């Protein structure tokens, strides 16, 4: 089995291949925001590096969003067309959740935030629990302060973020209660606000970390790993059901409704 994973929701596009054993390889573009131009050549490169033909693909997976609207569409329309041309099923991979695969066996809360401008973010918070993904804060479009408030609530006694994983992996670092690592391009504009939030007395039980540059943004390898999990759990879609997850209406629609 070979799953092709496409990631075009952020500033840099990447593609990855994963087989049933979970072996992943990835190609990343060095061209910012030129996904349309470089996507198919990248697919060609990764296939030839793995010694595969396009017909060796079993499923087409794509990072479905949130992220750049245009970026999401390039990925989803390319994935749909590949599936249409090859007669394959697709896997829609939630972009925010895929960050759980950025740092293997991380025990804290993974919190990707994408800058949606005007103090808005697309964000979510997730954590491994019993080898299953636990949603600490559901992925959605938020006002940054509202999002941080939800995140803080999750760490209050009885909150979702405080439950530690029952199984610890040998050799892995001891889980730290209340550790959150922020990912995504939202770190850059909102870092200070997040640090201020953490310093507030009600949140002083939370340790905030920011992802290192090399794991900060979306990566097709993580999309591929989550795609393999979704595939194992039977979450396959026909290409016609593969839809972008924008999490926000078009501005013109919002304005019209606001009238």
């Amino acid at each position: 089995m070979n799953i092709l994973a496409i990631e075009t929701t952020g500033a840099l596009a990447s593609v990855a291949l994963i087989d049933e054993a979970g072996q992943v390889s990835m190609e990343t573009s060095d061209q910012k925001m030129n996904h349309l131009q470089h996507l198919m050549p990248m697919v060609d490169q990764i296939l030839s590096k793995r010694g595969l033909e396009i017909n060796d693909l079993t499923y087409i997976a794509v990072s479905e969003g949130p992220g750049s609207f245009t970026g999401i569409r390039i990925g989803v329309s390319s994935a749909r067309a590949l599936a249409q041309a090859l007669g394959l099923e697709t896997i829609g991979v939630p972009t925010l959740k895929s960050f759980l695969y950025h740092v293997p066996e991380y025990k804290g809360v993974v919190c990707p935030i994408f800058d949606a401008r005007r103090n808005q973010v697309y964000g979510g918070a997730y954590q491994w629990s019993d080898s299953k993904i636990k949603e600490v804060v559901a992925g959605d479009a938020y006002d940054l302060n509202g999002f941080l408030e939800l995140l803080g609530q999750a760490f209050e006694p009885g909150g979702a973020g405080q439950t530690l994983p029952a199984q610890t992996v040998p050799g892995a670092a001891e889980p730290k209660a209340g550790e959150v690592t922020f990912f995504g391009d939202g770190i850059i504009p909102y870092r200070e606000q997040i640090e201020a939030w953490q310093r507030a007395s009600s949140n002083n039980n939370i340790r905030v970390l920011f992802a290192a540059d090399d794991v900060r943004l979306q990566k097709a390898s993580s999309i591929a790993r989550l795609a393999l999990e979704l595939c194992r759990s039977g979450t396959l879609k026909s290409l016609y059901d593969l839809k972008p997850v924008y999490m926000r209406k078009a501005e013109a629609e919002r304005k019209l409704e606001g009238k």
Partner: protein
Amino acid sequence: MKNNQFITLGIESSCDETSASIVAEGRNALSNIIASQIKVHQVFGGVVPEIASRHHLDNINTVIDSALKEADVTLNEVDLIGVTHGPGLVGALLIGLATAKAMAYARKKPLVGVHHIQGHISANYLEHKDLKPPFLALVVSGGHTNIVDVEGYNQYRILGRTRDDAAGEAFDKVARVLGLGYPGGPLIDEAAKKGNPHAVEFKRVYLEKDSLDFSFSGIKTGVLNYLNTQKLKGETISVEDTAASFQLAVMEVIVNKTIMAAVNLKKDKIVMAGGVAANSLLRGMLKEACDKKGIGLYHPSPILCTDNAAMIACAAYYKYQAGIVDDFYLDAYPNLAL
């Protein structure tokens, strides 16, 4: 190949129509599926790029399926994929392009990017089986107003272009201020039939002597000023008369410049293309002027005047015949030059 005929799949998504078509031997449209978004954008009074892009993505794969099915052609039998790569709304263009590129790559088909205007002109090859270049083309649509010297299937020279609004754009704007709605072209055409085209003398803008360029922003302002003045005077406004007078002022300039170009270049054929080529007044006036000069006039049927993929497939076919093929780095160019 199907029945020994060369099969082209055309894809168009440059504005608000998602279209796919199967064309045999470059000239024979076996299917031409058009999913129009006019109703979607009507409530906004014009095309909203983000919403158009979303709808293109929702529709494109089923539109391609329908085009194949209606033509009774399989993807295997497709020899070439042609797709609009500009000009147009970039977010809209890229849906067709991403789709065409992925399909061409996956099925190892040659890929050709087509200029939207070349597509509009090529619509005439589908309609008129014997038509061959050279000829003079008049391209008038919501986004374009061009007089083009077509010297060969792949040789184009733009002689005149709009310096501000496209003709169709001016129609949309005037239709809006007249309260006729969107899209303006057909609505003004309809209203004008009941009006007096000489009721208001709007200024005809010819620019410099011998210029083949256009300017339509002035007449739009002219209509606005007229309406305001009438309102201040407390006079009633006839929407039909205003529409008819506006339309005549625009078309007179277009017809005169087109005929001037044809005469100067000694062209014996004029080919109309684009959405406004479906306008009844323009067709009638140009026909009369062409008849006087002994020039042949060609135009596509209304369905081939709108944005459609059959015209893109046709243009792609002639590019491919000339040895033009694009690689998989093909990109979208919102301001692509012809």
